[in-house]
C-alpha cells in the first residue's frame, strides 16, 4: 500500500484515540481527585458525568476569545499552537504494539520508527518550554512573565536528570530506536520475571525510573512542580491572560505531555506493550479476568445502589465490561488488542500516579525546586548512569 496512505490512516487512528483519551483523562483526573477528597466530582452531565468533557469543550469553543490589549499579537496567538503541536509530535515515535497484519498489509503499531527516536523525543520535549515562555512573554503582564521565567529555568534544570535517566536504559538496550528498546526487553528470567529495564540486569533501573518520573512531573508542570502556573502565587501563571480555545490549547498540551512522558516511561522502563509474564503462562487471559472482575464489581454496585441517581449506569458498565471480557477471549481479537491493552494499562497506571500525586502532595517552594533538581536528582541520575555504564561494560 502507498506509504502516504498508510501513514494517513494510522495517523487518523492515533489522533482519534488520543484526542478521546485526552478528553477523558481530564474527566478521570477530576473524578480521582474528587474521590481522594471524598467528593463525587462531575456527576450531573451524563451518567457519572461522562459527558462533562464534551460539555467543557463546547463551553470553551463558544466562549468569547479575548485578546488583552498590549499583548504581542503574533506570539500571543502562536504560543498555544506551538505548545499543543510540540506536545503531539512526540507521539509519532511511540510504539504502541508489535507488527500486525490487517487486510494483507503488514505494519507496526507505531507511526514511524526513527533510529534516533529517543533523541528525537528529547529534542521535541526540550522545545516544549517555548510554548510556555512565549505565552508568558507575549502576554505582556507580570504574572505570566514570572511564570514563564520560572518555567524556563525549571524545565532546563529538570531536562538534565531526565536525559541522564533516559541514557541508562539506552546503555542496556544498545539502541536509540524506541521499537528496538521494547524488543530488547522481551525475554523473561526463569520463564516468568520480565526483563523490563526496571528489573533487567546488569543494573535494574529502579532509581532511573523513579528519577525519570519525578523529572517528568516537573517537565509537565504538574503538582508538586507546577510553579509556572501556581494559582495561589501567580493567579494562573503563564496562561493567566488566555481564555477560550487558546486556553484549551495549553490545557490539552499539558495532558498530551503527560501522556507522552508516561508512554516514554512505559517504553523505556516497563517493557512497552509486552505482558508482565509470558502468554503461555496465562497472561492472555488477564484482560478477560480483569474486565470480568470489573463487571462483577459494577454489577454489585448496580444492585445495591448508594445514590438515587445511580439508576442503570452501573448495570450498563457491568455489561460493557463483560462484553469486553468476552471479546478478549476471541483469539483474533486478543492477538490484536492485548498489546494495546498492556500498553494502555501500564501508561494508565502511570497517569493515575500523576493524578494521585496531584491529590496528595503540596507544591514545592521555588528554591527548593531548583535545589532538588541540581543537588539531588542530577547527582543521583549521574551516579546511576555511571554505575550502569560500568556494569554494562563489565557484564554487557
Amino acid at each position, binding site marked *: 500500500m502507498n506509504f502516504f496512505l498508510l501513514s494517513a490512516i494510522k495517523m487518523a487512528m492515533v489522533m482519534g484515540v488520543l484526542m478521546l483519551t485526552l478528553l477523558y483523562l481530564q474527566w478521570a483526573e477530576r473524578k480521582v481527585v474528587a474521590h481522594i477528597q471524598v467528593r463525587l466530582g462531575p456527576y450531573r452531565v451524563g451518567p457519572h458525568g461522562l459527558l462533562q468533557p464534551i460539555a467543557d469543550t463546547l463551553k470553551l469553543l463558544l466562549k468569547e476569545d479575548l485578546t488583552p490589549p498590549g499583548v504581542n499579537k503574533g506570539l500571543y496567538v502562536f504560543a498555544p499552537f506551538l505548545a499543543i503541536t510540540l506536545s503531539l509530535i512526540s507521539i509519532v515515535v511511540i510504539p504502541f504494539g508489535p507488527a500486525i497484519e490487517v487486510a494483507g498489509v503488514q505494519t507496526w503499531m507505531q507511526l514511524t520508527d526513527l533510529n*534516533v527516536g529517543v*533523541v528525537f523525543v*528529547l*529534542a521535541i520535549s526540550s522545545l516544549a518550554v517555548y510554548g510556555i*515562555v512565549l505565552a508568558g*512573554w507575549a502576554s505582556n503582564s507580570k504574572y505570566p*512573565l514570572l511564570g*514563564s521565567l520560572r518555567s524556563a529555568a525549571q524545565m*532546563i534544570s529538570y*531536562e538534565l536528570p531526565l536525559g541522564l535517566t533516559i541514557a541508562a536504559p539506552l546503555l542496556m538496550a544498545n539502541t536509540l530506536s524506541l521499537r528496538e528498546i521494547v524488543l530488547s526487553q522481551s525475554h523473561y528470567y526463569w520463564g516468568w520475571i520480565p526483563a523490563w529495564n526496571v528489573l533487567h540486569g546488569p543494573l535494574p533501573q529502579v532509581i532511573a525510573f523513579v528519577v525519570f518520573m519525578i523529572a517528568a512531573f516537573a517537565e509537565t508542570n504538574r503538582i508538586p512542580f507546577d510553579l509556572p502556573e501556581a494559582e495561589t502565587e501567580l493567579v494562573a501563571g503563564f496562561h493567566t491572560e488566555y481564555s477560550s480555545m487558546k486556553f484549551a490549547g495549553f490545557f490539552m498540551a499539558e495532558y498530551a505531555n503527560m501522556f507522552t512522558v508516561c508512554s516514554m516511561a512505559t517504553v523505556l522502563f516497563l517493557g512497552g506493550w509486552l505482558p508482565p509474564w509470558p502468554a503461555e503462562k496465562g497472561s492472555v487471559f488477564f484482560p478477560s479476568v480483569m474486565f470480568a472482575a470489573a463487571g462483577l464489581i459494577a454489577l454489585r454496585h448496580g444492585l445495591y445502589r448508594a445514590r438515587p441517581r445511580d439508576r442503570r449506569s452501573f448495570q450498563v458498565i457491568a455489561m460493557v465490561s463483560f462484553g469486553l471480557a468476552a471479546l478478549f477471549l476471541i483469539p483474533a481479537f486478543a492477538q490484536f488488542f492485548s498489546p494495546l491493552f498492556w500498553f494502555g494499562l501500564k501508561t494508565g497506571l502511570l497517569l493515575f500516579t500523576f493524578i494521585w500525586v496531584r491529590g496528595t502532595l503540596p507544591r514545592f517552594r521555588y528554591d527548593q525546586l531548583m535545589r532538588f533538581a541540581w543537588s539531588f536528582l542530577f547527582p543521583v541520575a549521574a551516579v546511576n548512569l555511571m554505575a550502569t555504564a560500568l556494569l554494562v561494560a563489565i557484564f554487557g
Partner: protein
Amino acid sequence: MDAIIFLIFAAAAVIFGINVVLRTHPVSSALALIGVMASLAVIYLLLGAPFLAAVQVLVYAGAIMVLFLFVIMLLNAGSEKKSRGAWMARLAGVPLLVALLTILSFVIFRMYPRSVGVKFGSFAAGTVERVGSALFTTYLLPFEITSLLVLIAILGAVVLGYKELD
C-alpha cells in the same frame, strides 16, 4: 523531492536569518534564530546527519536559545535604539559584506562544479553509532578536553552569576 525540500528550507533559513538581523526586538531576533536552526536541522537530515539534526534541535534550540530568551526576558530588554556612528558602520560594512559574500560564492562555484548533486540517503553515516564511535576513538582527546572546557564554562558562569556578599 530533495530539491524541493532543500529549496523550501533554505529559503526559510535565509528569511529567518534576515529576520535575525533586521528585527529590532531581541525576542523577535531570537525566535527567528530558532527558525534558522530548525530549518538547518532539516537540511542536516538531507545531508545524512540525523543525529546532528536531533542534537541541533536539542542543544541549540532546546537549551542555548532558551537561555537567550530567559536572559532577554530577565533583563526585560527593549527594542534597540539608534545611536551615532550607525551610518558609518553601514557605509563601511555593507560593501565589505557584499564583497565577502561575492568572493565566497565565486570561490565555491569555481571549486565545486554543479554536476554533483546531493541525494538524500546516499550517505547514511550520520547515525549515533558512527558519530559516537568517531567521538570516542579518533577524537577521544578533543572530546575529553571539550568536557573540561564545559566544566570551566560552568564554573565561569557560576562565578559570574554569583551574588557578591559585600
